């Protein structure tokens, strides 16, 4: 067993090849840590102008007219555009994620006649500086016809609710149902049924770097170049082409350094279109950089769902059925990914358990709020929160231990591939992970200490959650059958240069997660080279091959890595053929090792990669007769199904019942993401995602008034944790290679965020067990914790009057 207290030993156990599994320090870190990284806000172009958006101050209103005359007259202002200016040539914002029954919710780069949320772009000012653009913005006069607004789903679903889209009969933009087994029979026969209503608040990805776009139109030939803070290079390219009416191959999208994305930068935004339009109209480069207050209103929000769910079980703790009714709060329009995350919540409602009977229903509800979209984990943290809290509820009803109830219901290892509500799970040994977590956490010891601490008046609780993460999104055909016009494949272009060094071109984006390191390590492993000899080029549609999807869904290391492996396989064969010719050796006797092709067992007989490169491009006569010059491969990998990593969070918290403040006493985390390519990066992904999960559980909330007015505009209102609030994680890894991904990698990018909210909530509920409260709402702010305790106390007084 790996010693979790020593990273060095832990990392040694994770190394499965020369380079795969090696804790190589990230190639970009010196640049980033010394402030040398260049982000959108660092880029300038000759003659570049600056943009500022006028945004709607009203949650719901018709626009009678917009008067831009005074703004246009301000010296230094080059243009002011409104929805009316864009209408003749610019299409509605695309929604590439389209599924059956999804309604069309048209919205535009600049609102035409109606706004549906505070922050919706209404006009665009282009000026010599951002200062002047903001001065001019104040001079724009909008004649508003304010409409009644809905600030929450209850109000939106009321029979007399104002309708966001005229002609609709209600505010539901789409619904979905899925069922398996005989749910009614399971519930009728159950010994115990637990019913809970879970409320997950509105939060968002909130990357350190906001969004930005720099657009430059070249009239001859008619080409658009856009530097964009996107995670999805080709989604941006396709959507720009579609909205602006330009052939996609004439749109070049470039991605500089990204300061995080967390899914919010997967989306395609109105600003991308409006700024590109402005550049085309004016004939000069235009840049817009999102400021922090804008980010809260204009970058997609996420997570907000209400889940009414029930779980049925037998007296011996076998879970026999799940029912869930899910409401997703979509905001004012369906954004790039529509209600995809809510759908994922619905189909993940059986989690890792062998539950034969399940029925889920979802409604995607429009409200007068910022549109809903992607954030690390998509709909999985919500589903995990609901299922894991229900499992805790069943355990409490039956007097079973929280670990034991889980162990009794896992999908057993011999049932894989396992067909869940929608997905097929590839592999897993869940009980092994649970056992390891029990040991790592010192669970039994904590239970003893908990009893002791309770007797001292301290409120200590232990929470556990088990998660599974859907990664390596695919296969492409299945996505299409689900109605989504996107692929799950990735293409890698690997080229050996004349120097013998290697360049990899990929459509994946480096958003700070370190994907270029992972691809270089995979390539280094396959070609027997040092990763320092391998350059990875990302973020340029003109150079990089197309990705079916983009960087999201924890797919880069698994799908992108497998594509690189495949391309390296082709190249390796050609390298060996060349070397065999040069060394007069048999191909079967050759191996690629330490930057050279070597004859096994004969250390003197070798040819360097530099010699191979020279032969391939410059000294063609060294190649075997009839062989074409050049040494490169372009290969596609389309995953046959998804890969499913999994893991366990064990959390120990103490609650100060007077102030409601939660502090962490311990946090143990065990996971299995298949083959680990770089353990430093994997650890970092877990740390960051767990921090975001803890933050979702305790801190973050985008609060709106009932009328749809946002009550947030700065970090004074929207609480993010600092390093102080995040406990030291004790990590351990199991490694069960995925049987369906060459190399055995599974994704890991979202893992930490999925199970942590449920575990933290479970720990708080356990700490407050003396009060008998249920923790079904997030975030558990100090105020809400105190209110829960007060509620329980007054209920107790009411039922047992002194």
């Amino acid at each position, binding site marked *: 067993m790996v010693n979790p207290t020593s990273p060095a030993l832990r990392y040694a156990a994770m190394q499965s090849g020369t380079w795969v599994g090696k804790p190589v320090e990230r190639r970009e870190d010196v640049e980033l840590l010394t402030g040398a990284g260049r982000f959108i806000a660092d880029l300038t172009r000759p003659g570049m102008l600056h943009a500022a958006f006028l945004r709607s101050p009203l949650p719901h209103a018709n626009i009678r007219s917009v008067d831009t005359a005074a703004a246009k007259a301000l010296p230094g202002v080059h243009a002011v555009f409104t929805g009316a200016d864009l209408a003749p040539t610019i299409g509605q914002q695309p929604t590439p994620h389209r599924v059956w029954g999804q309604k069309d919710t048209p919205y535009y780069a600049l609102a035409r006649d109606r706004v549906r949320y505070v922050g919706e772009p209404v006009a665009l000012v282009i000026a010599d500086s951002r*200062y002047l653009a*903001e001065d001019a913005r104040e001079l724009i006069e909008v004649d508003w016809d304010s409409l009644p607004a809905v600030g929450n789903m209850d109000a939106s679903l009321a029979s007399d609710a104002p309708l966001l889209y005229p002609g609709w009969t209600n505010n539901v933009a789409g619904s979905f149902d899925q069922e398996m087994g005989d749910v009614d029979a399971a519930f009728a026969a159950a010994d115990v049924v637990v019913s809970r209503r879970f409320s997950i608040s509105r939060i968002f990805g909130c990357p350190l770097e906001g969004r930005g776009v720099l657009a430059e139109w070249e009239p001859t030939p008619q080409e658009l170049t856009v530097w964009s803070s996107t995670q999805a290079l080709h989604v941006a390219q396709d959507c720009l082409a579609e909205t602006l009416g330009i052939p996609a191959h004439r749109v070049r999208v470039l991605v500089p350094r990204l300061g995080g994305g967390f899914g919010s930068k997967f989306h395609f935004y109105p600003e991308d279109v409006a700024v590109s339009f402005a550049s085309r109209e004016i004939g000069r480069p235009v840049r817009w950089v999102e400021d922090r207050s804008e980010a809260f209103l204009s970058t997609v929000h996420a997570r907000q769902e209400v889940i009414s769910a029930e779980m049925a079980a037998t007296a011996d703790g076998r879970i026999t059925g799940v029912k869930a009714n899910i409401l997703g709060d979509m905001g004012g329009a369906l954004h790039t990914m529509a209600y995809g995350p809510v759908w994922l919540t619905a189909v993940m409602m059986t989690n890792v358990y062998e539950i034969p009977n399940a029925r889920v229903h979802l409604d995607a509800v429009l409200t007068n709020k910022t549109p809903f979209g992607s954030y690390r984990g998509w709909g999985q943290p919500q589903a995990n929160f609901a299922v894991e809290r229900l499992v805790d509820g069943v355990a409490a009803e039956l007097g079973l231990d929280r670990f034991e109830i889980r162990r009794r219901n896992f999908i057993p290892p011999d049932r894989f591939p396992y067909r869940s509500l929608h997905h097929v799970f590839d592999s897993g040994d869940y009980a092994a992970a649970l056992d390891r977590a029990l040991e790592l956490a010192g669970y039994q010891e904590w239970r003893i200490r908990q009893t002791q601490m309770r007797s001292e008046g301290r409120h200590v609780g232990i929470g556990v959650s088990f998660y599974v993460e859907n990664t390596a999104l695919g296969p492409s055909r299945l996505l299409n059958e689900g109605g989504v016009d996107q692929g799950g494949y990735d293409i890698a272009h690997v080229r050996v240069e004349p120097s013998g060094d290697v360049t990899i071109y990929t459509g994946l984006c480096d958003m700070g997660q370190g994907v270029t390191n992972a691809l270089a390590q995979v390539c280094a492993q396959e070609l027997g080279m040092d990763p320092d000899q391998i350059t990875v080029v990302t973020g340029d549609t003109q150079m990089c091959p197309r990705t079916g999807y983009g960087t999201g869904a924890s797919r880069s290391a698994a799908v992108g890595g497998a594509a690189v492996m495949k391309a390296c396989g082709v190249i390796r064969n050609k390298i060996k053929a060349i070397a065999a010719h040069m060394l007069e050796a048999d191909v079967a006797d050759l191996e690629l090792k330490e930057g050279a092709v070597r004859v096994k067992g004969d250390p003197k007989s070798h040819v360097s990669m530099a010699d191979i490169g020279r032969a391939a491009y410059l000294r063609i006569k060294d190649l075997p007769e009839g062989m074409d010059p050049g040494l490169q491969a372009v290969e596609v990998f389309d995953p046959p199904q998804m890969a499913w990593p999994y893991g366990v969070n064990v959390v120990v918290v103490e609650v100060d019942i007077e*102030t409601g403040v939660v502090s962490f006493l311990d946090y143990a985390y065990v996971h299995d993401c298949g083959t680990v390519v770089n353990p430093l990066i994997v650890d970092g992904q877990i740390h960051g995602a767990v921090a975001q999960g803890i933050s979702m559980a305790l801190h973050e909330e985008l609060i709106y008034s009932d009328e749809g007015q946002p009550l947030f505009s*700065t970090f*004074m209102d929207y*609480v993010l944790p600092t390093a*102080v609030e995040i406990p030291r994680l004790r990590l351990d890894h199991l490694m069960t290679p995925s049987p369906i991904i060459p190399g055995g990698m599974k994704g890991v990018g979202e893992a930490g965020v999925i199970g942590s909210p449920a575990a933290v909530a479970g720990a708080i509920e356990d700490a407050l067990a003396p009060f008998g409260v249920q923790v079904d709402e997030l975030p558990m702010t100090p*105020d809400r914790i*105190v209110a829960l305790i007060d509620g329980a106390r007054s209920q107790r007084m009411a039922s047992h009057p002194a």
Partner: protein
Amino acid sequence: MKPPPFEYHAPDTIEEALAILANTGEEARVIAGGQSLVPLLNMRLARPELLVDLNRIASLAGVSQPNPDMIRIGAMTRQRTLETDSLVSTHFKVLAEAAKFIAHIAIRTRGTVGGSLAHADPAAELPAMMLLLDAEFITAQSGGVSRRLSADQFFVGPWSTTLETGEILEAVEIKTATDTGFAFSEVARVNGAFALVGAGAAANVGRDHELLSARIAFCGLSSTPRLLALPSEIVKGRPFNDELIDHVAAEVWRWAEPIGDIHARPEYRRRVAVALARRVLPLAVQRATVGATS
């Protein structure tokens, strides 16, 4: 997030600064550390036509001891200095304790004592601490006019003081009190966030460890920083025990005028004010006892 145009002056002397202010009137604002004003400018919530920057006026910065019984803190003294200055740590360690709760080190390194006091955010620590320490506020106006105000006179409402147009806060002076014990604590959503409630306590004890007087100042609790001088019938001459603490808690509960916002309801703030009172007062008493016997 860019400010509208404004004129900017950075004078070297306080006389110069006062003269500029006298000539411009209400359209001018003084800028100190800028940790509150600059965001307000960028969000265009404050729109002064002219800024007078005090950062070059050396005489406004620093902690000094004008006489053995007094500590003077210049208005342009950085909040971070409260944590590192030896005079402060000798005489008012509690100021260092409270300063740690002001935002983060980077902000405290720029933010000033005077800036925080003149901004008078009800959730800010320093205004409440000045009430607790019974500080005197020394101001300057053009023409050599200077006023001395008690903390109570200085703070009149949320973000509102009795500083007049053209008047600059020059310093605060605090009488040293070796026989008094102090303590401060705070509950915030996260490290560095504004206080949900912060509480500072001061206590004097007699030779037999009986309580002579006690007071508790709160930030974040109400729409202004507030000081509760505990009624002498509760504290004077009483032994410090659980019964007394219960009386104090009841008094805080009754006295509090809690506010609500998106972070916490008034009921919560009242509850936390009581909880903090129960924590800081015993510590202040303990420190007073140590002081009295040493």
